[in-house]
C-alpha cells in the first residue's frame, strides 16, 4: 500500500476515535503513529503534541498536519489534515437532515454515556502508555507529580499551556 494511502487511513481512524476533546487523541496518535506504524519515534510524537498544545487549533488536526509534512512534505500535510476531519464531517452531513427523527427513536444518548466512560478509560490507559515512555526516572516523575498537583490545586483556572511551558523551562535547566 502506498505511504500516502496508509497515512490517510491512519488519520481517518484517529479522526473517528477523537471523541470529546484533545486528550483522547493522544493514545490514538501514539497507537497509530508510534506503536503500530513506527512512523515516528516517541520523542518526536511528544514534540508534535507539545507544539500542538502551544499553537492554535485542535490537537488532532495539528498532529495530522505535522506528521503528514514530516512523512511526505506538503502533499502529506494536506492529505493527513483532510483525512482527520473527513469522518466527522461525513457523519455530521448524514445526521443533520434526520436529527429530529434521531432524537426520539434511536436513543443516541444511552449509547453516548458508555462512550464517554470508554473515552475516560482510554485517557487512563494513555496515562500509563504515554507516561511509561515519557517518564524515565525519579526526577521526571517528580516533575510530573508537581505539575499534576499544580493542575489539581488550580482546577481548570490555570491554562495547561502555562504548566507545559513551566515544565519545559524546568527541563531545560535540569536535564
Amino acid at each position, binding site marked *: 500500500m502506498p505511504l500516502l494511502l496508509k497515512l490517510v487511513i491512519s488519520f481517518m481512524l484517529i*479522526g473517528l476515535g477523537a471523541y*470529546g476533546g484533545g*486528550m483522547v487523541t493522544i493514545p490514538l496518535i501514539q497507537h497509530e503513529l508510534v506503536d503500530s506504524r513506527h512512523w515516528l519515534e516517541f520523542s518526536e510524537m511528544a514534540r508534535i503534541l507539545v507544539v500542538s498544545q502551544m499553537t492554535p487549533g485542535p490537537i488532532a488536526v*495539528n498532529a495530522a*498536519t*505535522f506528521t503528514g509534512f514530516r512523512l511526505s512534505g506538503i502533499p502529506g500535510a494536506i492529505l493527513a489534515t483532510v483525512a482527520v476531519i473527513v469522518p466527522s464531517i461525513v457523519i455530521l452531513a448524514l445526521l*443533520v437532515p434526520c436529527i429530529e427523527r434521531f432524537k426520539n427513536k434511536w436513543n443516541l444518548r444511552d449509547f453516548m454515556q*458508555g462512550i464517554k466512560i470508554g473515552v475516560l*478509560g482510554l485517557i487512563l490507559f494513555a496515562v500509563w502508555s504515554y507516561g511509561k515512555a515519557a517518564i524515565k526516572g525519579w526526577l521526571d516523575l517528580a516533575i510530573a507529580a508537581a505539575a499534576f498537583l499544580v493542575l489539581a490545586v488550580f482546577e481548570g483556572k490555570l491554562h495547561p499551556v502555562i504548566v507545559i511551558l513551566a515544565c519545559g523551562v524546568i527541563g531545560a535547566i*535540569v536535564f
Partner: protein
Amino acid sequence: MSHSIRQNEENDSMPVSLISIFWTFFRIGLFTLGGGMAMSLVMRHELAIKRRWVKDADFMSLMSLATVVPGAIAVNIAYLLGRRMRSHIGAVMAVLGTILPSFFVILIVAGVFLPFISNPKVTAFFRGCAIAIVSQLAFTGFIFGRTLLRNWKQCAVCAAGMIPACVFGIHPIFGIITAGVLGYWLLPKKKPEGAGGNAPTA
C-alpha cells in the same frame, strides 16, 4: 422549544457573505489557543452573541450535536454553523477558515523550527514539556473519573474501554465502541428529555 437544526431556508434577513464567514472563522482559528471547547466558546461569542448570525438557542442545539459525533469539536461546530448560515458552501468556508490558520502555523513550525531541534537545550525543553502532558492526561482522567466512575457498572464500562488497547494491543477505537455497547446494555437508560449535551471535553 424545539429549534430545527436543519438549515433555515426561509431566512428573512440578508444572508451572511461567504467571505465574512471565512474571515470570522479564520480569525477565531488563528487567535484561539486551548483546543476545541475554548474555540467553540469564542465562536458562540462572535457569531451568536456579537454578530447574531445564528440564534443563541440554535447555537446551543448545534453544539450538542457537535459533541455527540467524533472528531475535533471546533471543526464540527464550524461545519454546522457554516451549513446553518449558507448551506454546503458556507460549511466549506467555515471549516477551511477554522483549520487553515493552524495548518499554516504547523507548516511554519515544522519547516522552519525543526532544524533547530538538535540543540540539546531545546531537546531538554521539549522533554520537560512532554512530561507535563502526562500530568495533563492524569488530571483529565482524575476530573472525569470523579464524576463518571461512581459505581461498579461504570468502572466495568471504563475497563472495557481500556482492555482492547491495553491487553490485546489492538486499535484503541475498539475500546470506545466496546464501552459504548456495554454502557448501552449495562447503564440505566436516560430520560428521553435529556436535552443537555454535556459531553466531556478532555
